[in-house]
């Protein structure tokens, strides 16, 4: 019997591994932001290396999963939906890596008054993504429970929006000493970090629709 399900066993293992990798990537991103804000340059460089490796691994795994789905004709009716979902998961690690590189390349100046705000923003945004991963794992086992798990994602996404808006308001209303270029630069970095939670929200939407589709 185990011979019959060998391919499926491998695929299940690969999907779990893929989700783990992306989850790890999000955690590394969060730590990377903390390192940058606290000025720990060597740790930040280390995080960039780690996230690059994780992103490469995730890409390889995604391609392998794609091949297995089509080669062994597994879930032919739902494969395209699952592929889109895996793409959305991949976007999370892709964007995380890009943002860390942007921090590394552009070295945005973050005033001390805003460090805590940025830390809270990164935390809330990553939390939205991190709440998505257990929901993704549950989707494969108990689709009906997914919707309940996604409530947290929407909450964190809204929190991130609020925090981002506060930072922008602070930048343009309460910090006259900063140059406009610096303000705009920081505004863009706020937007970058906010994107993680937006992508998590997109994934959550997709998951809830898919879960509903599977349970019918």
């Amino acid at each position, binding site marked *: 019997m185990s011979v019959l399900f060998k391919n*499926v066993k491998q695929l299940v293992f690969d999907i779990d591994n893929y989700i783990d990798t992306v989850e790890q990537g999000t955690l590394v991103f969060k730590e990377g932001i903390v390192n940058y804000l606290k000025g720990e340059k060597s740790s930040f460089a280390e995080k960039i290396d780690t996230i690059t490796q994780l992103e490469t691994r995730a890409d390889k795994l995604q391609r392998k999963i794609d091949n297995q789905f089509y080669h062994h004709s597994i*879930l*032919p009716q739902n494969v395209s939906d699952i592929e889109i979902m895996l793409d959305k998961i991949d976007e999370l690690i892709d964007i995380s890596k890009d943002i860390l590189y942007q921090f590394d390349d552009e070295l945005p100046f973050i005033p001390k008054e805003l460090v805590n705000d940025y830390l809270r923003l990164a935390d809330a945004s990553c939390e939205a993504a991190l709440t998505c991963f257990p929901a993704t794992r549950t989707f494969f086992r*108990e*689709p009906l429970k997914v919707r309940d798990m996604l409530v947290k994602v929407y909450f964190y996404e809204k929190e991130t929006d609020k925090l981002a808006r506060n930072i922008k308001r602070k930048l343009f209303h309460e910090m*006259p000493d900063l140059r406009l270029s610096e303000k705009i630069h920081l505004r863009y970095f706020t937007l970058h970090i906010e994107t993680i939670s937006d992508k998590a929200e997109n994934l959550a939407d997709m998951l809830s629709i898919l879960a509903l589709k*599977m349970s019918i």
Partner: protein
Amino acid sequence: MIILFYLSSGLFLGWSLGANDAANVFGTAVGSRMIRFKTAAIVASIFVILGAVIQGAGASHTLGKLGSISTLAAAFTVALSAALTVFWMTRLKLPVSTSQAIVGAIIGWNFYTNNPTDLNILTKIVSTWVSGPILGGIFSVLLFILIRKVNQKTKIHLLYRHSYIKFGLLIVGAFGAYSLGANNIANVMGVFTTAITLPTIDLGFVSIDSTQQLFLVGGIAIAVGIITYSKHVMETVGNTLMPLTPDAAIVVVLSQALVLFIFSSQTLSNSLQSIGLPAIPLVPVSSSQVVIGSIIGIGLYKGGKEIKYNILGSISLGWIATPIVAGIMAFIMLFFVNNVFKQNVGTNNLIETKIKVVKGAATTINISDSTYTGINQTEPIVNDSIINKEKLITQRDTQSASKTKLIIIWIELLIIIILAFILIYYLWFRNKKTNKLKLEYNLFKEKTLLKVGSLKKRIVEKELRQENLGKELKFRQNEMVTMAMSIIQKNEFLENLKREIIKIKSRVSDHETRLGLNKLSLMITQDLSIDRDRERFQLIVNEQSNNFNQRLTDRFPKLTDNEKRLIALLRLNLSSKEIASILNISPKSVEMNRYRLRKKLQVEPKTTLNDFIRKF
């Protein structure tokens, strides 16, 4: 060789059965690419043959009771007429079933050969046509509930579940193919079993009798139909007719297999009889109709909203139309085979049996006459022969009466033919009308979808444009605020500088230094009054508020330029102090100007000036 020729019509019927009915077993699995066609075809072929050889006798025996076709030519004609009926009605897209066609063709033979049709057997067969789909529906509902409960209780990974379903579809498909072979082989070879007798083949461990050999050949014909033509049916009709989820597909195929198995299992029937229950009628049932029954069962369980109830009407019409058409076709073809090709298509079995008895008796009389010795023992024989002669005369009378009956039958048949043609015409016309309506509906749907699509696209484009404009507006506003802030800061700085210069001037006694400080103070004052930044800012504000200004002027034509400037700055949510700095006037003047503006704009006491301007 001649046997093979006569068998060809049955083989054709088998081929068409394999080509069409295999889709009921593996259609969803292949159509949804869960199972490859190659695998499905191999499994279906093997199990159809096994089912036919091992368990095909039961249903065939019942068909034999309905009409025992004794000659090869008659069997060939009956099978051919059933096959042609299926072919013709399928082309006209009318509901048709092989099981019903063969029953109709046998009744047609009964009519032609003047053999009585056993009404009990016929009732038994017709009742299974109705009970088959109903039973399929019941099974499917029960199995569907069971599979749902299992899915909810167990936390199986989606991919493992898929594998189990895939494996299950293969197993259930094999069972379905076995049942299809066991039940439907009677349609293909049932009519030949009494006409052809083949020597038993002994393979040592198993022996295959004449009927089983015929069923083997029929099974192979079905398998050829599956391999050569069912792929097309599975990929087109199989999937479009029943777009089922894999779970539902397993349930439907299993229900169908169970129904077909029940109506062909002699062992099950015997077991029921042994515990005092009534025997199961072993009758060929239409697999397509059982599948439809099963799907309707699931549909009803789900609430019955998606069911197309007109399909039930089609099945019912199929029950009536198919046997009538097949019967008429068999009757006409038997007439031709009998009178044009001079082939023996069978006689009245009852009369034949009686004539045989009489002939036997007459021979006994002759023997008695030649060997008559006057012994008393021969008296009963003589008496018997007299009785037999009387019977012979009665028989002749019966034959002349049967001729009259034949004429009546011909008239009845003519009426049936006319009725059948009217029915077929009605079905064909209705089908044509439905197709036309469907075509019109699809065209309308397509057009509407296109329109909706283009409208949606336009809405999305507009929303996008609006969003971009909103973003741009926000950006410009931010830019203006930033600029205003920098002007304010610069002016504040210059004011402070001027104050400091005045302070220093009061402490300095040197004339030249005082003159220099005076010059500096004057320069600052000039810069404050002729501020280029402010002018530029004013320009941007005016440019941004073009529409707003226009609206303002239209409604309040008496507003001055200074008042309009104040309104523009208030729109940016700037405080009186900030506005004062930008306009190089005192904050008190700003407050006064605001008061005048409020009066001019006739703002209600409850509303603030800022809110009024923002909402304007």
